[in-house]
């Protein structure tokens, strides 16, 4: 145990004193998200696609006309299930249900309007609610006073209406975990091997399992730190929500980090020298970054690349993170993501232990 903590302390000091390495691991994902977020948020204007359900009676017609006069709204009329489907598909920002009996004589009670909104649109749905509140208040006043109280109830539902940034933040998190395995583990091990640091450790009575588990522990903790930074940044600056269970998210992150750390060990064992190893790591890094659907949807990719997409472990980590964070439409069910990642972890761990080399 002394040796285990000694190695963790040594690796941590080594990391904290490596400015360049620290930048790539912590600074780079932050800059990436900020750039991405600001580039794509510049084109967003305040405008809402509003689905309206009900409203065949005269009073409702009047309200409908009032809604159509609001410049930031585009009103679509339809049946409730149609409009909700549109909302889920991301083609509506909200669906307003006008209750029946609006033209009936006021009974003095409250009349409830339901507004379905996209749960992921934190700021957008607030603005939409307040716009509609205002329209209802005016309508109430015109209808002649306090006989009738119109109440707007917001019902968030899970929709697919992502802003690009909602898609990007889990993607950057997945990329960071993958690169931690490739560069934080594989490249690091290659450099330790090339400098004969590993050899010297080997001569000491440190079992391989102690050395390997110390580095794994330290790197998984680092992945969690990276995750915390990325999620906080996404939430504070771009209001990217965490809709799923935080515990599940933590689990996905740990499983993903373990799988990619194992990949790092395996790749380090395959490479002969540091120089050829780095080229080799880049050859793994680039396809993963661009073919795993972490920056754009898998559907955008041509059919002949699909088998590659499904073969890459990062596809499943990206999908699992996106499902738990922003409850995106799953590529595959979450349990399947976890099984695939677990399978990669098991196979890579066995290969990594089998082929690990001190020199």
């Amino acid at each position, binding site marked *: 145990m002394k040796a285990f903590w000694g190695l963790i302390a040594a690796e941590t000091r080594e990391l904290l004193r490596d400015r360049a390495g620290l930048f790539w691991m912590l600074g780079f994902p932050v800059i990436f998200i900020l750039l991405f977020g600001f580039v794509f948020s510049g084109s967003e204007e305040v405008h809402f696609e509003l689905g309206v359900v009900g409203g065949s009676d005269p009073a409702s017609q009047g309200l409908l006309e009032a809604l159509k006069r609001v410049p930031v709204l585009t009103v679509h009329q339809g049946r409730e299930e149609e409009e909700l489907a549109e909302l889920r598909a991301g083609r509506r920002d909200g669906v307003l249900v006008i209750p029946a009996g609006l033209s009936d004589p006021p009974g003095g009670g409250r009349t409830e309007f339901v507004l379905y909104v996209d749960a992921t649109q934190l700021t957008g749905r607030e603005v939409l609610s307040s716009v509609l509140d205002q329209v209802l208040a005016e309508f109430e006043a015109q209808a002649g006073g306090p006989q009738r109280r119109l109440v707007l109830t917001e019902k968030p539902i899970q929709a697919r209406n992502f802003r690009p940034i909602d898609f990007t933040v889990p993607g950057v998190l997945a990329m960071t975990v993958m690169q931690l395995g490739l560069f934080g583990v594989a490249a690091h091990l290659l450099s330790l091997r090339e400098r004969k640091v590993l*050899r010297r450790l080997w001569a000491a009575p440190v079992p391989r399992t102690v050395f390997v588990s110390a580095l794994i522990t330290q790197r998984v903790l680092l992945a969690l730190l990276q995750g915390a930074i990325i999620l906080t940044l996404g939430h504070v600056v771009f209001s990217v929500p965490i809709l799923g269970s935080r515990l599940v998210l933590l689990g996905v992150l740990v499983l993903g980090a373990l799988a990619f750390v194992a990949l790092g060990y395996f790749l380090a064992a395959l490479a002969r020298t540091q120089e050829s190893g780095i080229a080799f790591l880049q050859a793994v890094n680039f396809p993963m970054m661009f073919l795993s659907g972490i920056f754009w949807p898998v559907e955008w990719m041509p059919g002949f690349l699909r088998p590659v997409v499904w073969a890459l472990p990062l596809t499943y980590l990206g999908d699992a993170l996106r499902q738990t964070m922003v409850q995106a439409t799953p590529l595959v069910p979450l349990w399947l993501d976890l099984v695939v990642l677990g399978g990669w972890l098991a196979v890579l761990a066995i290969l990594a232990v089998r082929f690990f080399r001190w020199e």
Partner: protein
Amino acid sequence: MRSLVIEVEGLVKRYGETLAVAGISFTVERGEVFGLLGPNGAGKTTTVECLEGLRVPDSGEIRVLGEPPSPTNYALKARLGIQLQDSAFFPRLTVAETLSTFARFYPQARPVGELLELVALSEKRRSLVKDLSGGQRQRLAVALALVNDPELLILDEPTAGLDPQARHGLWDVIRAMQAEGKTVLLTTHYMEEAEALCGRVAIMDRGEIIALGAPTELIARLFKETAVELELTGKADLDDLSALPGVSRLVPEDDRIVLYTSDVPQTLAALTTRAAQGSLPLRDLIWRRASLEDVYLALTGRRIRE
């Protein structure tokens, strides 16, 4: 307690087609400073790595402190002090952090301050490893070998690349270890280092031990004479030179000849006469007591450093 600290019997190690160690045998007793001597590629490092358990021999028996070394014999590794050829540690740790990290790998450890004192690195304790000079790094490597207060120190080329002052500093460390009763096995290709430090040496060449014994004994066994080295600018008559008074043996090299003589004044007189007459193209001449260098030269026909 056994008095044999190292026992090697018929050790063979191949790398593919290359025979690195060709069946060597030797023993080292408790308290000895034992030297493995030879040029690069003689098989010294391979031998040492088999003793340390870093390599598994193809055949032969090894016992170190009574145990068979192996990559997973951690109990044995904990009793050894190992300095590897150009090994390193985390470049961004300080000297003191490096030592205390290593101290955690062993059941017992010497205090860091004491180790720094011993290898004269106290004023560098807060320097990062990557900022050390070659000599300081080498001394740190030796301090790492001492960290667990080992019974047996195995040092692979501990003074390679050091300037003479630093080298003598390390000699003092090794002598201090011997005074503490530790056993030391070291490899070197510096003959004078082996003569100065080692009670016994094994001279290795192409994977074999070609001579084994105390340096003075080896020298006396082969040479009762003084060596006279001639540096030449052209060809010399070798038959004439071997017939000079007192000369018992002659080893020709490229632009040099070494004569071994039992009568230095007579031989020198004859040589200077020939040089003055112009029959010997002599550029320079030195004479010296025979050394391990001569033993190696006599046994292999080559010099150790080339």
